[in-house]
């Protein structure tokens, strides 16, 4: 009797949902994703993990890894495959806005004071994991890919995704633990900033290489177009962006007209890089990077975008990534051993590479280890790169799922390890010590 009632309720719900308009279903999807990501994010913040880690996990729980496995009918009703294109469109808007904010927040001043050490540590922390990723690709390509994926694209993407550091998550972790003004904090921020710029250049090259090999347009022509775009942005658009700062200075805020123009330029830049065969994230990032740098202006623009992007749109991106992640497929097909190899190699190459480079610059073991732990944080940037890789057909879904696990594992371990190295009390006293002027 109970089963009959339950089945009829599910049937009724299914019938009602089948009659949903696309707009209704999209709103339902957005509501479900926001609710789950907030709840799980809050739970993770209780165990001293950044909210973004919880949001990433929340997205995975909504996908085939949990909801699709435990309640496939409900998953099919709320997130049918045919409706995901609308969700993808919304999440890409969020991604564009977020990457604009990342570009905008780049501060070369953070690098200047630690230039030599930052460049060395940053580049070592990218090259060694990149080589590790390419080496692992030799092993897993015949075991996990098929002939629709070229080895070159596969290995390039494995390398690129192993080498990334999540600058925004790292900054958030340092702020929460009161380490931002410490020696390790300032150096890791500088290294991550260099990582960001280098990493996006490397990723742009990787995407360009993969797409050029499949495009009808000759690669050299695509290269010329990409260079022309970069020159246009640097010599035409960048001088124009001073207009926004003038408006801000005159009115103490950005007018609606100026704000609309800024968004239009941002969208145009993203569309242009997508059209050129790169990905729209690069256009958004570069647009942010060429904006004026005065702190008040940057803060004002970031505040305008932040709430909508971080609270509403970015969780949709996590949700969509989660809907693409099938951990049950990894476990069910015995691929967990490959997952373990990738996770161990990712940690060893990134943490170890950063540690060795930091020691060579004269850092103490504890600080070098702490820097390695921080640089090992891959988080959101890893998810962005993996989604780009999946969309352009560089990596298969199983590899995508494993790399998402790797991103989660490396980000999750950051806070507990940092807490072991820098218990809150020690960080505060070290900070007070650093703030005392030391006379030569």
């Amino acid at each position, binding site marked *: 009797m109970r089963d009959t009632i339950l089945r009829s309720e599910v049937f009724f719900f299914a019938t009602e949902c089948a009659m949903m308009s696309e707009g209704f279903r999209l709103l339902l999807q957005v509501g479900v994703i926001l609710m789950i990501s907030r709840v799980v994010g809050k739970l993770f913040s209780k165990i001293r993990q950044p909210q973004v880690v919880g949001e990433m996990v929340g997205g995975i729980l909504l996908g085939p890894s949990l909801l699709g496995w435990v309640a496939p009918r409900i998953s099919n009703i709320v997130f049918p495959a045919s409706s995901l294109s609308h969700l993808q469109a919304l999440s890409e808007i969020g991604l564009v806005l977020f990457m604009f904010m990342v570009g905008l927040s780049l501060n070369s001043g953070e690098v200047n*004071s630690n230039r030599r050490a930052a460049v*060395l540590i940053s580049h070592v922390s990218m090259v060694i994991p990149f*080589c590790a990723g390419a080496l692992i690709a030799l092993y897993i390509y015949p075991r*996990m890919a*098929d002939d629709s994926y070229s080895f*070159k694209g596969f*290995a390039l993407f494995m390398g690129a995704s192993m080498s990334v550091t999540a600058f925004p998550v790292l900054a958030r972790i340092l702020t929460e633990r009161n380490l931002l003004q410490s*020696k390790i904090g300032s150096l890791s921020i500088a290294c991550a900033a260099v990582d960001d710029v280098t990493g996006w250049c490397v990723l742009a090259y990787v995407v360009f290489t993969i797409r050029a090999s499949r495009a009808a347009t000759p690669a050299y022509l695509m290269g010329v177009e990409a260079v022309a775009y970069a020159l246009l942005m640097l010599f035409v658009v960048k001088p124009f962006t001073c207009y926004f700062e003038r408006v801000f200075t005159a009115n103490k805020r950005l007018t609606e007209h100026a704000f609309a123009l800024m968004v239009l330029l941002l969208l145009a830049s993203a569309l242009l890089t997508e059209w050129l065969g790169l990905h729209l994230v690069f256009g958004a990032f570069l647009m942010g990077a060429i904006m004026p740098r005065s702190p008040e202006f940057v803060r004002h623009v970031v505040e305008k975008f932040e709430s909508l992007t971080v609270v509403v749109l970015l969780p949709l991106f996590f949700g969509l990534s989660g809907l693409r992640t099938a951990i049950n497929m990894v476990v069910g097909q015995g691929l967990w051993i490959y997952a373990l190899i990738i996770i161990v190699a990712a940690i060893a190459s990134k943490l170890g590479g950063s540690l060795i480079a930091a020691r060579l610059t004269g850092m103490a073991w504890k600080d070098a280890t702490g820097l390695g732990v921080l640089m090992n944080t891959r988080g959101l940037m890893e998810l962005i790169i993996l989604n780009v890789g*999946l969309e352009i057909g560089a990596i298969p879904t199983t590899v995508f799922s494993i790399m998402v696990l790797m991103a989660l594992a490396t980000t999750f371990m950051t806070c507990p390890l940092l807490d072991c190295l820098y218990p809150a009390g020690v960080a505060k006293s070290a900070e007070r010590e650093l703030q005392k*002027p030391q006379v030569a």
Partner: protein
Amino acid sequence: MEVKHPALRQPSIARVAASYLLLVGLPLLAVPMIFKVGRQLSAPPAIGGEWTFRLGSSGSSAGCPWQGVKQIDASITQAGPDVRITFKAGSGPVLVGWLWGQGMEGHRLAARSPTVPGSPRIERLTAMVQARDPDRTMEGSLSFAADAECETPFSAARSFSSQQSAQ
């Protein structure tokens, strides 16, 4: 008197240059070699996606399962050489298999075998994959339980690849 901030002490240029050559330059030299080795590798044919199986006449026994059935749809998921074939007929027999070269062999996944009476128990599938880009086709045979005479030939064509659905 000069005020120094100990947090910002910079390593010497010579030390940085030597470290850079060792830890960045040398690994970068290895990257082209990795790609050169990788060019020799081959991956299994891509067969993931939605397939349509067209069945031939099955064996000499009148009681062969799917007698009279002309066409069945199936979904194939793939991770490298490992494949999982789910037939969309009855309670969906599931086979797990593997690819070697252009050949494929699959056998019944015991845990997911249908126990509904009358539902066909596919024991084994053997096939050869024809990799004509972008279309993929297969030809082979299905063997059913309980009757060794019921070997049903089939030809299959892929209607939708899993890469298309991921993108």
